[in-house]
């Protein structure tokens, strides 16, 4: 308990805690829309595709600035999504297989670039390999500030365009009929996902960042049948995961924040799938028992009536 108190008072720790929480919050919010649009794996593809983008951004600028990484990752994500679209349009390959091809080839290319950077004449390259699994503890004040601004703007955009995002996620055809620029809205959602992925990479890493987009959203779905609530719950779950991950990792030495954050999200998911009202496994089991009992009772009642009739 005392160590926990000391940690809470540590300003460095506060920064990391704040940024991980905000990161979880924003990925949770944007994740809801990608989950409902059946694009969960797109987050994973974008994350893996971001690696070569980040490496190229570093090779060109020679600095580890979040802004350039964002640009690089965004460009790479754009190329990846176009690649997936091109493959599905021009071949018999289905969307999931196309994502698999693009994801792995981009990641492979990213690893090659990463190795070149590490063995090349780039100064200040230390820490770039941390992008694979993330290193929250390495974040500095300016990173935290950028992450906070990005996360908050992401949430603001989702709030402002909630109506549009909702309709496009539920029924894009009808949205188009109303005159909504559906393609533009879908691109905006995709862009927000790229942003969430890129700010998440530094804390959680390329390999695991998709978990923060998928898991809180899936967990939140177990607790509500309203999109508004789902987005809020998902955001809270994401924030909780980030917070819990940071605290646990700071309690021991050599405990990585990113993976712990993902594990915290998974724990929340397990709780949700078990105890979610109505949709949870326990609630379903209870309901089945209740229905079975009421049918039994009805049946017994009828039989008693029949027996009564027979004796008369």
């Amino acid at each position, binding site marked *: 308990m005392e160590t926990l108190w000391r940690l809470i008072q540590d300003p460095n720790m506060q920064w990391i805690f704040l940024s991980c929480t905000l990161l979880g919050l924003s990925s949770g919010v944007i994740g809801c829309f990608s989950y*409902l649009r*059946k694009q969960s794996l797109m987050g994973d593809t974008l994350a893996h595709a971001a690696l070569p983008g980040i490496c190229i951004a570093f090779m060109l600028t020679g600095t580890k600035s979040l802004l350039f990484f964002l640009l690089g990752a965004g460009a790479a994500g754009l190329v990846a999504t176009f690649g997936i679209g091109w493959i599905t349009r021009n071949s018999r390959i289905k969307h999931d297989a196309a994502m698999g091809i693009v994801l792995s080839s981009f990641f492979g290319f990213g690893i090659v670039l990463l190795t070149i950077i590490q063995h090349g004449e780039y100064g200040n390259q230390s820490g770039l390999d941390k992008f694979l699994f993330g290193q929250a503890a390495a974040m500095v004040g300016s990173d935290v500030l950028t992450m906070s601004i990005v996360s908050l703007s992401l949430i603001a955009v989702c709030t*402002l365009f*909630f*109506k549009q995002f*909702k*309709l496009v*996620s*539920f*029924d894009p*055809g*009808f*949205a*188009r*009929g*109303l*005159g*909504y620029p559906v393609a533009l809205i879908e691109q905006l959602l995709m862009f927000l996902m790229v942003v969430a992925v890129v700010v998440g990479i530094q804390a959680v890493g390329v390999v695991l960042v998709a978990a923060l987009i998928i898991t809180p959203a899936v967990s939140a*779905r177990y607790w*509500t*049948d*309203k*999109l508004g*609530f*789902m987005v809020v719950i998902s955001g809270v779950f994401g924030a909780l995961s980030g917070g819990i991950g940071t605290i646990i990792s700071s309690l021991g030495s050599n405990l990585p924040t990113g993976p712990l954050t993902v594990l915290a999200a998974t724990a929340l998911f397990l709780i949700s799938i078990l105890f979610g009202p109505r949709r949870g496994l326990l609630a379903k089991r209870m309901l089945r028992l209740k229905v079975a009992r009421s049918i039994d009772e009805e049946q017994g009642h009828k039989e008693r009536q029949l027996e009564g009739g027979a004796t008369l």
Partner: protein
Amino acid sequence: MKNHLKTAAPLTIEGLSVAYQKKPVLRGVSFSIEEGELIGVIGPNGAGKSTLMKAALGLIPRLSGEVLIYGKPYRQQRRLIGYVPQRESVDWDFPTNALDVVMMGRYGHLGLFGRPGAKERRLAMECLAKVGMADFATRQISQLSGGQQQRVFLARALVQDAKLYFMDEPFAGVDAATEKAIITLLQELKRQGKTVIVVHHDLATVEEYFDSVLLLNVELQAYGKTEQVFTQQMLQQTYGGRLAFLERGGNARLAVTKG
């Protein structure tokens, strides 16, 4: 402006062609419909009935041709149009309830950042009541039956308060009660002077339901008043050899056989 609305037909299509990849789905379709009618779009599977509707609504790109809604391009007339897509076109496990889906019909009337409020709620409740679904307003949509889901979609189109309605197979896979609710509603819309175009599959009910019929099989086969166009000869032409006529109790009944 008012005058213009009166003179121009609700929907005029000139030389419309649409293709998916290389395969033409619609070829050179031209027709113009009259205001205040119930119009059935009839044709075999793959005849391009839904495509005709989507192309008219600007949901899919067209190769050539022109679509005019009350004499103007679709873009300028969006608010005059209500649309009921096929029920299977959405995931009904979406986290929302019936009332909420109906309120989506008002989104076109709200501004960029406008949010549905008390007025939208009231309008949506009225339309849910019209389709006999008022008691299901707060029901999660995945817990509705197919017929009830169809009625929710219908209510969402009603709340759009349009003049011209497009309905893509509203009668597909619904129970008798829903079918009756839908047809009562269509007649109510007609009484209000609205025009409704319906993609329809059940040939047995065509004469009962529709004022005019559009027979389609990639190309337009015929368009006109039901009693003139909905004939054995025209249907044979539209469906090819896949149509069987069953005589029963003096009434000629129609059935499509697999072919």
